[in-house]
């Protein structure tokens, strides 16, 4: 059985089902209760689970730090950070504690927390509401970083993230929250973490993208005459480079797409993994189609900053003609 859902609805449904499944699961964050979240991802959840859904004060370090304590007590904390940029207020709690707790205690303590947060541009949002920092989180050992690009994956990945015994940064592309309605399996549905998906097969080049860039990449590929394989990374860390490498060994050419600034972005890591394991198969330099090395601008300049299908198409053409 499937259901036609928007991405944000799939999130909400998954939270609901996981709460039913796991009585120790708690959902908390700013405005997730009465208001049901500013994107309505937790809508009506509090009515169903009045004792396990909490509005918190505006304090992100607290939101993360509380989760470390909840986890130690045996609960399953699922926190929402209202927008990804505000996780920086709790960055120290993520890096110094959540990510390290298992290794520093040799597995005697773990942090089974999922931190959900809307990320990325494309919705003409306010300043600091459009950033992508997956690369920064992927550089922190002990953290998992997961980014769905469609409703079904949103459900399957979120279920896996919540059930995972380690801390997961779960980045939800705001641009896609309501962009499409797609079938989502009903009932128990998980998508394993750290497995990329080949969402379109091709022979001439590989395009790697994740989250909000996947639809843009797919439409760029559709606009192209060439046969381009599209890999949806799905989990930024630990990264499934095997799928990418396999594809690039086949195609010999690759474009990596992300919204974050180019320098130090996750595309660099993808290039490095290709360098490690598929260099001799490369017929052209890997192209990075990314945000520029400028702070994500306010929305009047957002379209100029954020890769769209046209820019991605040009990147594919460059890599094909090199």
């Amino acid at each position, binding site marked *: 059985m499937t259901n036609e859902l928007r991405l944000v609805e799939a999130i909400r449904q998954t939270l609901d089902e996981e709460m039913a499944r796991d009585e120790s699961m708690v959902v908390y964050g700013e405005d997730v209760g009465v208001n049901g979240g500013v994107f309505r991802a937790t809508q009506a959840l509090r009515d169903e689970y009045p004792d396990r859904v909490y509005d918190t*004060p*505006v304090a992100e*370090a607290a939101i993360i730090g509380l989760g470390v304590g909840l986890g130690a007590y045996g609960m399953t904390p699922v926190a929402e950070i209202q927008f990804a940029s*505000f996780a920086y207020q709790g960055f120290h709690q993520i890096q110094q504690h959540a990510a390290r707790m298992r290794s520093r205690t040799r597995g005697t303590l773990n942090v089974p927390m999922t931190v959900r947060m809307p990320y990325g541009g494309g919705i003409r949002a*306010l300043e600091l509401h459009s950033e992508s920092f997956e690369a920064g989180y992927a550089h922190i050992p002990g953290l998992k970083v997961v980014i769905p690009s469609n409703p079904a994956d949103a459900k399957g990945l979120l279920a896996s993230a919540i059930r995972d015994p380690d801390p997961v940064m779960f980045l939800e592309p705001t641009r896609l929250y309501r962009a499409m309605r797609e079938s989502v399996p009903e009932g128990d549905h998980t998508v394993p973490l750290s497995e990329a998906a080949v969402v379109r097969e091709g022979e001439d080049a590989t395009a790697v993208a994740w989250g909000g860039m996947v639809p843009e990449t797919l439409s760029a590929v559709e606009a192209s005459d060439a046969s381009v394989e599209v890999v949806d990374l799905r989990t930024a860390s630990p990264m499934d480079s095997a799928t990418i490498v396999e594809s690039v060994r086949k195609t010999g050419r690759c474009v990596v797409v992300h919204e974050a600034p180019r320098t130090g972005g996750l595309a660099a890591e993808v290039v490095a993994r290709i360098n490690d394991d598929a260099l001799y198969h490369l017929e052209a330099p890997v192209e990075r189609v990314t945000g*520029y090395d400028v702070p994500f601008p306010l929305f009047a*300049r957002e*379209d100029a900053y954020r890769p769209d299908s046209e820019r991605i198409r040009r990147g594919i053409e460059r890599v094909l003609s090199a």
Partner: protein
Amino acid sequence: MAEFSVEYVQALGEDGAVDEDEAPELDDESLRETYRLMKLSRRADERAVALQRRGELGTYAPGIGQEAAQVGSALALGESEWMVPSFRESAAYLARGTPVHRLLWYALGMEEGAEVAGSNFPPSIPVGSQSLHAAGLGWAQEMAESDEATICYFGDGATSEGDVYEAMNVAGVLDAHTVFFCQNNQYAISTPRRIQTRTETLAQKAVSAGIEGIQVDGNDVLGVRAVTQDALAKAREGDPVLIEALTYRRSMHTTSDDPTVYRTEDEEEEWGTRDPIERFERHLLETDVLDGESIAAIEGEIEETLADEIDLAKAGREEVDPAEMFDYVFAEMPPELRRQKEEWKSENERGGKEEGFERDE
């Protein structure tokens, strides 16, 4: 061992009565200007919300209901003293002389609207974070032996952020010339004040920094003005103060928000009867500072100003050059960024036309 208390000040009662002990000394001209700014702000907010509803503006955070708190406090500040706002301080900006089109530019997603003019910081989106900048400015004023001070705005929600506590605490230690002005408008988006903190007041947060905390009726522009003047006088001597202005956000959090989800009509109506502009207007009418005619004149002038400013804002929007996003990252553009800008230009400016810059709404 140690004892603390928090006082509450009101100069202009809800009934229109003035407590002369608390009210500031202001001539009629100042009173009228205060009134004009409050009305201007109210109408600017209303127009902005309407523009947003028509798709002509981005997300906007109106300050409707908070005009007394903002105008009363901002007018107490000297022109060259620093104002460090949050994201809902249109009224304070207007009181500081910022033209409406600059505020609209910001709401149009243009950095042009966040350019610093005069001693005003740009809007700050991350809740409470700007309080540390205000502490820095106030500390700089102390080090410079300046007789000036800095005012910082934030909301009730912000008082839960570590930054705000750190800011008050370092301001206390460093004798920063900073007044922390908390507009307790009862909500942080949907979250009511009682869920932010277990305290009776927000003013008592000052106790944790060893600085003075005071509560004022934030819908009483005279009380706010007086309390802020006092606080600034102390701050100028190196004694920071926290002011909690009790007010109410009469409309939505931002244009993305629907307050009916989380609060009752009764509550909104109750606060409606305490509207700061109406209260002040009654007082000015009763004391003959204003009459129907002068009010009409002010209102007419405001509508004209707004019409002009909205035109200016739209015209500016047409001029936006997206390629400028590369220009202000560093004082000097590094080679890789220059390369990226060239790349952008070659892809977007074929034949002089700028592509990739249509609004897709």
